[in-house]
């Protein structure tokens, strides 16, 4: 990698900040390529920080269980905080540090309903019994804490990019924005949907994102940086830790801290890539002063039952009963063929539990078996005969791998779409008309040569939503929805939408249909 003086780098970014300048900049198109990591002494992973001249541009990923905060252009967030009840203590209450204080003695409401609720999660999907203002105040305190301990800004944050799931309820978003504007005093906040950022973080434009979160797992198909279909299930982090807490003893449940510790230290997932005989091994795990002998198999069990156990046949059940693979499959099933084709071979598995060794392989492998079993036939329940008959439906997908040869782009996709009449033809937005991907392919083909692979199940690692957002932000791109402080303070989100609406810029209406709409 070539390295250049930061001054150089700075000049470039300054230029990019002015539209007029960009044209001038465009005359020397290859300068950015020579941009490189600033050789910082600081040997922590955040060393590869780009000297974005726009200091204090923060990127915040707000999750239900943890929050990531850092600076745009850096490869990693400066901090990743998990919420804990100790953060709710009064100022000057240090009892949790007392040598004889034992978190295990903390009396808690028992049962799955109350598992890891108070203090451990900032919100729950069901807002009915949530004190929004409490969430807000808590978030404010958290941000203050983060600012003081990790960011140490010398001046107010100039911009904030907020990464949040597209399914984040409006009221929560409002509360979050209020917190950002209030504590960080930033003039603007930019919204980035997590799923799309994950795609950006993988260097892709279309993908099937399986985001295993805390409260729920969200499977979203992203095409051309738009969410075109989503599926959700409660099979996610919270359910998993609950299952883990039961692993040692059914009636005596562990603390959330212990459960998460066991999960993160020894949780794993069976798959084809499991080393032989691993499930037979015994391990001794220590919790507090006690230690337990337990088999690897048992340690994998919670992941099995929470993520992959099939409560009932797919098709007859709602998403919560389906395994992750089933949910992912259904999302794929409802995609138009060519979108699906791209997504299948760009499957991003992200979110906290996705780091459990073996999980990714397992999920992909299950998905593969689904496809082999059912093809792309939405009708599932007439006899085995028909299933074999419906096998051919899988062929087009394989065929599509061949047809991605640059030469004859358009027609063949059509021909593949034709012969499968029982394929669902969902209402495809105009911008998703079948020929457009071909247009891209043609374009990219003209430049790149062979077009991206498609049709085969393939997992792609993403650097994660936060990093994706950091990338975008550092590239000085405007977010999907930009919210100005004054306007927000004036009228809240609703007022904001009204402001955005009349703006007759071309493309805004379309944008709104998929960006802010995500939160409305």
């Amino acid at each position, binding site marked *: 990698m070539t390295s250049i003086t930061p001054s150089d780098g700075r000049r470039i970014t300054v230029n990019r900040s002015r539209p007029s300048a960009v044209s001038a900049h465009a005359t020397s198109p290859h300068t950015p390529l020579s941009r490189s990591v600033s050789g910082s002494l600081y040997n922590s992973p955040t060393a590869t920080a780009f000297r974005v001249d726009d200091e204090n541009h923060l990127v915040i990923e707000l999750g239900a269980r943890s929050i990531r905060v850092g600076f745009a252009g850096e490869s990693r967030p400066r901090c990743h905080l998990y919420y804990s009840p100790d953060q709710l203590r009064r*100022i*000057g209450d*240090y009892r949790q*540090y*007392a*040598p*004889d204080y034992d978190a295990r003695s903390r009396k808690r409401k028992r049962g799955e309903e109350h598992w890891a609720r108070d203090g451990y999660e900032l919100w729950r999907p069901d807002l009915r019994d949530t004190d929004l203002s409490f969430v807000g105040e808590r978030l404010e305190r958290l941000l203050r804490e983060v600012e003081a301990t990790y960011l140490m800004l010398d001046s107010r944050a100039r911009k904030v990019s907020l990464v949040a799931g597209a399914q984040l309820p409006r009221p929560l978003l409002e509360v979050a924005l209020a917190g950002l504007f209030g504590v960080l005093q930033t003039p603007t906040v930019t919204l980035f949907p997590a799923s799309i950022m994950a795609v950006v973080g993988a260097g892709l434009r279309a993908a099937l994102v399986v985001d295993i979160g805390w409260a729920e797992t969200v499977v979203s198909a992203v095409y051309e940086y738009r969410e075109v279909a989503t599926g959700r299930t409660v099979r996610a982090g919270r359910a998993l830790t609950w299952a883990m807490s039961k692993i040692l003893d059914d009636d005596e449940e562990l603390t959330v801290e212990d459960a998460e510790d066991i999960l993160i230290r020894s949780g794993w997932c069976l798959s084809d890539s499991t080393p032989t005989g691993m499930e037979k091994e015994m391990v001794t795990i220590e919790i507090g002063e006690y230690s337990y002998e337990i088999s690897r198999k048992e340690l994998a069990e919670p992941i099995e039952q929470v993520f992959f156990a099939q409560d009932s046949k797919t098709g007859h059940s709602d998403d919560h009963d389906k395994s992750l693979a089933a949910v992912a499959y259904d999302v794929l099933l409802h995609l138009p063929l060519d979108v699906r084709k791209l997504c299948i071979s760009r499957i991003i598995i992200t979110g906290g539990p996705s780091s459990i060794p073996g999980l990714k392989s397992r999920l992909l492998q299950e998905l593969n078996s689904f496809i082999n079993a059912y093809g792309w036939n939405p009708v599932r329940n007439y006899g085995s005969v028909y299933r074999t008959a419906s096998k051919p439906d899988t062929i087009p997908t394989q065929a599509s791998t061949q047809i991605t040869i640059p030469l004859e782009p358009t027609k063949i996709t059509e021909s593949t779409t034709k012969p499968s009449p029982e394929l669902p033809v969902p209402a495809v937005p105009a911008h998703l008309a079948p020929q457009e991907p071909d247009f891209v392919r043609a374009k990219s083909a003209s430049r790149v040569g062979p077009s991206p692979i498609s049709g085969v199940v393939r997992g792609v690692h993403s650097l994660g939503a936060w990093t994706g957002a950091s990338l975008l932000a550092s590239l000085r791109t405007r977010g999907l929805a930009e919210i100005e402080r004054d306007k927000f303070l004036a009228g809240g989100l609703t007022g904001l939408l009204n402001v955005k609406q009349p703006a007759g810029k071309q493309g805004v209406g379309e944008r709104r249909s998929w960006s802010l709409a995500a939160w409305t």
Partner: protein
Amino acid sequence: MSSSRPARKSSKGDYIETDSGNKVSRKALITGTPNITLAGRTVLMPDVHLRGDIVRVRPPPPTTTTSTTSLDPSSAATAKPSSSSSSQSTTAISIGKSTIIATSTILRPPARLLRGLLQPYPLKIGEQVLIGPGCVVESAQIHNHVHVGARCVLGAFSVLRENCRVLEGSCVPAGMVVPPGAVVAGRPARVVGEVGEGFGVDGVGEGWVEGGELREVVRGIR
């Protein structure tokens, strides 16, 4: 002790009171008295151990000083032998004004090897410091207005800067430097917060506040 120890007023009572107002419990266990400096109105409570005998064995005549020349904390932290300069005198322990060493606390000057020889360094405690009962102190220096809770262990060459607060039962690891106004706790101790702006300020001028003046408390001890 430097400040005319033998001058005993109250032959009765648990404390020997020197004319500079030091109060030394009769039950305090003190070795190497000549190497110990009490600045005045200093209280050593029962069963307090002072290891004045752990001191440089150097020729220069014993000149006791109440010097509070700051021993460069960073050098203390990173175990560099350069910090020996401030210890030409044979002061083992020096304790500042109105400082209280509570019951059964042990003060032992820290020592480290220097060119193959065990070299003790002076243990310096500032003014208005309260060290709670049952502590073990091997610090290089404790600055003014520090509050150390009960049953703390202050490791060798640790440095407590002014107005910091060590919560009960903490163990400050050897060589740790506690910044001014920090709250440390835990085993090992880490900075867990900051004292309030009003730490040690007694708004109403009555009684005692943590980190504040100890004169009243000292007066109360007899």
